[in-house]
């Protein structure tokens, strides 16, 4: 599959999983998808290992768009991206977009075969 992968990163595992459910309902299996949420103890927060694993799961040669909720989710996602092997790093982008709505829109855009840049843009333009 060469559609752009979608990774959902929320402080809350419930939010991340629920958003993934909404994505699946919209695009079925047409898009690689993974979610992660919670700190390493399972509390509200995010963790880099979980994000790296999700990127691996949703990996696509077309790249991966990461949707995050607030502050720490973004910082941890950017940290995770920098820890990727160099050949993957440039093909993963963190979107400046709402986590739930952005994930649904980005996945819908991806399911049509759009580029990583177009997928990111679609999510970022939703409230613009």
């Amino acid at each position, binding site marked *: 599959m060469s559609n752009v992968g979608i990774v959902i990163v929320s402080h809350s595992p419930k939010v991340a999983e629920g958003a993934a459910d909404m994505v699946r309902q919209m695009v079925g299996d047409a898009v690689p998808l993974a979610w992660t949420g919670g700190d*390493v103890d399972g509390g509200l927060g995010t*963790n880099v*290992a979980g994000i790296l694993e999700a990127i691996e799961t949703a990996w696509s040669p077309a790249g991966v768009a990461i949707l995050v909720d*607030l*502050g*720490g989710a973004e910082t941890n996602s950017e*940290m995770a991206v920098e820890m990727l092997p160099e050949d993957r790093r440039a093909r993963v982008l963190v979107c400046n977009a709402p986590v739930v709505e952005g994930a649904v829109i980005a996945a819908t855009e991806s399911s049509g075969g759009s580029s990583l840049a177009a997928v990111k843009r679609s999510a970022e333009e939703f409230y613009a």
Partner: protein
Amino acid sequence: MSLDRVARERLVRALAASVIEHADELTSLDQAIGDGDHGLNMKRGFEAVLAALPGLADKSLPEMLKAIGMTLVMKVGGASGPLVGTFFMELGKALPGQPSRADLVAATEKAIEAVKARGRSDAGQKTLLDVLVPVHAVLAGGGDAKAIAAEAMQAADRTTPMQALRGRASFLGERSIGHMDPGSRSASLLIGAAVETLELGVNT
């Protein structure tokens, strides 16, 4: 500045103790203007660092700092994890095994720049940078351990009247004024522990 294995282990334990013993204070600072997890976050991170002892202290100083940074990045969980973790990692990358004071000044400057880039932030926004930046100035100006520790504490205090422009506290707008920034408090604790252990003199 020369640190043998014993001194390295003592440094690690002092850093960890400084935040772990103040976890409740850090949490209540974060409750006032954030989500109330900063104490827990830092405690989790530094407990993982302690768990890497004694092996951790077998490493050279630069490698040890990088390992501490990576552990904090992986374990802390909050926005502070990648920020404080990046600081330690970049310090480790920039320092030689037996650093001079000039090396320390240059390396902390690089590490601070990396924190700014990671947080898209700068001093003046009520974050740990409001401790790191002025403390670096005292270090660069030749201040001794006492002067550095005093500046760290005062810098954290000076975040109280500031309005937060980064992180969750910024959601509070003007209501973030009047509370000390939790990340600045933990940074000042870590710096205090470090300089005390290192017994940094004016020329070392």
